């Protein structure tokens, strides 16, 4: 509750600064529209913004799902096979050295202007944090558990399934929280590079037509959606981990 109140206070402060700038500088509205104008545009264009927001939400959701899935599978592969570790780890590290942004035009070229290139973008951007968080967790199984399992005559596969994976779930949770922050970034970058739908596309469109108020509205909606996603994932992970042990 305190967090909610603090968040609300921070939003009010930002709003006050924004309104203050409008009063002091009185900039033209295509440079900096007033909060009231943005709110009005947001309400008037709610159908338009909603339509594009839905697309972005869809892309982010699919990206999160598949990025997490691939990340989990890769982490398990890496944790169980030393051969995979020696081979895949350098590739993973190298792939992270290339900014995902740089790949966006290529993805659009290959996969087209539709949703797929954006989903792949989101998958790529969250794949590494999910993989590395979960992998770290899998490699940090408390030694005592492994000793115990060994004296019980367990096979490596059963140790993985009954001990290492469940013990790494909190680490996977941290990876998921990061993924929730990154996934919208991936989708919006994809939309910027080439799209006909989505909030990123709407921002560019509004910007090109000097509809700065609409662009601000789209940015605010995107920000609110990303924040809601993070809060939901954070709360979900925290609640799950708490319930699991009580």
């Amino acid at each position, binding site marked *: 509750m305190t967090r909610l109140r603090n968040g609300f206070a921070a939003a009010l402060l930002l709003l006050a600064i924004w309104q203050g700038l409008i009063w002091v500088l009185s900039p033209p509205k295509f440079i900096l529209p007033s909060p009231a104008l943005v709110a009005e545009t947001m309400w008037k264009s709610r159908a338009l913004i909603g339509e594009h927001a839905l697309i972005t939400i869809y892309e982010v959701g699919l990206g999160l799902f598949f990025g997490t899935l691939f990340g989990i599978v890769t982490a398990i592969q890496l944790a169980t096979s030393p051969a995979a570790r020696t081979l895949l780890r350098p590739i993973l590290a190298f792939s992270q050295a290339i900014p995902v942004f740089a790949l966006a035009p290529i993805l659009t070229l290959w996969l087209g202007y539709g949703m797929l290139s954006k989903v792949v973008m989101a998958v790529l951007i969250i794949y590494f944090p999910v993989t590395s968080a979960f992998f770290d967790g899998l490699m940090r199984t*408390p030694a*005592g*558990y492994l*000793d*115990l*399992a*060994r*004296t*019980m*005559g*367990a*096979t490596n596969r*059963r*140790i993985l399934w*009954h*001990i290492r994976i*469940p*013990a790494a*779930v909190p680490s996977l949770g941290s990876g998921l929280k990061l993924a929730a922050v990154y996934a919208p970034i991936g989708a919006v970058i994809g939309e910027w590079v080439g799209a006909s739908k989505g909030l990123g596309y709407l921002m560019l469109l509004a910007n090109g037509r000097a509809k700065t108020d609409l662009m601000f509205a789209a940015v605010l909606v995107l920000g609110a959606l990303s924040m809601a996603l993070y809060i939901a994932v954070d709360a979900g992970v925290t609640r799950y981990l708490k319930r*699991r*042990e*009580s």
Partner: protein
Amino acid sequence: MTTGVGITVTGQATGLFPALSLPLRAGAWTCLLGPSGVGKTTLLRLIADLPAHVDFSGDITAEDDQPLPGRIAYMAQSALLLPWASVLDNVTLGAKLRGNRADRDRALNLLSRVGLADHAHKKPAALSGGQRQRVALVRTLMEDRPVVLLDEPFSALDAKTRAEMQELAMELLQGRTVLLVTHDPSEAARVGHAIHVLSETGLESVAPPNAPAPRAVDDPETLTATGALYSKLRGAA
């Protein structure tokens, strides 16, 4: 009832302990006492065939000449309960890890023998330290092995709980060959059928009190033995 098998450990670990011979009598409690860092736990891990990260040369043999792996159960200072699994799932972990069907009736029966019947479906976080060690003891019993290795399993408990756990463990592990690694002289004097003190110079056998174990903590003979072990430890350190 599973009966114990005798084991003899002979050998040395470079840089840790010199050549020694540690007999574990069948069906008896052997206490291995010594200051921290002399290799008590290493010795136990060698018997358990766990990674000991030490250069050991020697033999660990059972008196029936059968291989040891698969005949040993292990219990540590930490209860090592999986926090996400219920008490019942924790005590049947061994069966699950071997791909066998868990004997839930036997688990519930043993849990009620240690007074935890009502806690079977709780998670470890809901239990006290003493209760957790009782769960670990039941998990050890579920393994039903002739040899049980205890690595300071009671040392994190308060005095009263520790004494109760010692009695409970002696009762439930009766007939099995038990090695108890401990740094507590009074614990060794209470429960040991045989007591060995490990130091940098080697292993020294100390005669346990005559009374049957578990002995009363305040029995004069137990107290004398505790005192003697204390002086040995201080000399050894």
